[in-house]
């Protein structure tokens, strides 16, 4: 005669340790994360054949805009506002635009100028930098 040994019920695994680990990870990610809403503006985009950027000689002519050290844009030597520049560019996406910035101007002024021109529909934008002698 064989006696059957009563089966011992399997022990329950405690969930407390898992909850501890989860909470620690949760707090870690909540504390260490910095949420930044960032975008980008392409500055250089070249292809395999080495051609960088767009052709500045647009079919709609070329516009040279100088950016002063104070962040003021100049067109043909005269200071112009961003709204005037936007109106000039609107409706002429083939216009090639070259920006000649002063190296003493701040980054925001250049970005604002590019932002205005791009928002007005400028398709061919190029930044010209005069190399120091």
């Amino acid at each position, binding site marked *: 005669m064989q006696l059957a040994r009563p089966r011992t019920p399997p022990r329950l695994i405690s*969930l407390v340790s*898992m*909850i501890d680990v*989860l*909470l620690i*990870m*949760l707090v870690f*990610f*909540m504390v260490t*994360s*910095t*949420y*930044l*809403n*960032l*975008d*980008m*503006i*392409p*500055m*250089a*985009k*070249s*292809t395999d054949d080495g051609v*960088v950027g767009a052709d500045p000689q647009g079919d709609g002519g070329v516009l040279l805009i100088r950016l002063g050290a104070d962040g003021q844009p100049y067109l043909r030597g005269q200071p112009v506002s961003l709204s005037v520049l936007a109106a000039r560019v609107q409706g002429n996406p083939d216009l090639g635009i070259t920006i000649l*910035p*002063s*190296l*003493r*101007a*701040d*980054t*925001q002024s*250049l*970005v*604002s100028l*590019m*932002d205005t021109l*791009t*928002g007005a529909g400028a398709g061919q934008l190029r*930044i010209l*930098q005069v190399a120091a002698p």
Partner: protein
Amino acid sequence: MKLQRAQRRTPPESIIPLIDVVFFLLVFFMLIGRMDATAPFDVTPAVALTGQDMPGGGTTLAIGEAGQIALDGTAMTRPAVLDALRDGVVANPSRLIRVNAHHATPLADVLPLVAAVEAMGARDVVLVVTPDTP
């Protein structure tokens, strides 16, 4: 004689919903967070409304207001940055290079660096901007 009714035992609260919520929060923070090295100095990007969505990955070149430079969160001198970038660009010219310049940084500290990176053969150089007022 007054008979006392036996007190009912309240069932223990289940912790399964708590685990579910914690799991959801954990997965949420893990998914939306992007691990990125921050520069050891203050960098508040310029504001632009026509910026494009920035893809992940790549190398971040941070430029502070006083012209300080950091590559992927490590402050370096300009020659060291250019050397490190040159090695990276030679290995992978398609690697995205993000220039994260402070909005008040003079262009003299930004444009020559961008031109140098471009001259190395980097194919994707972008300027980091923010769509909101800092």
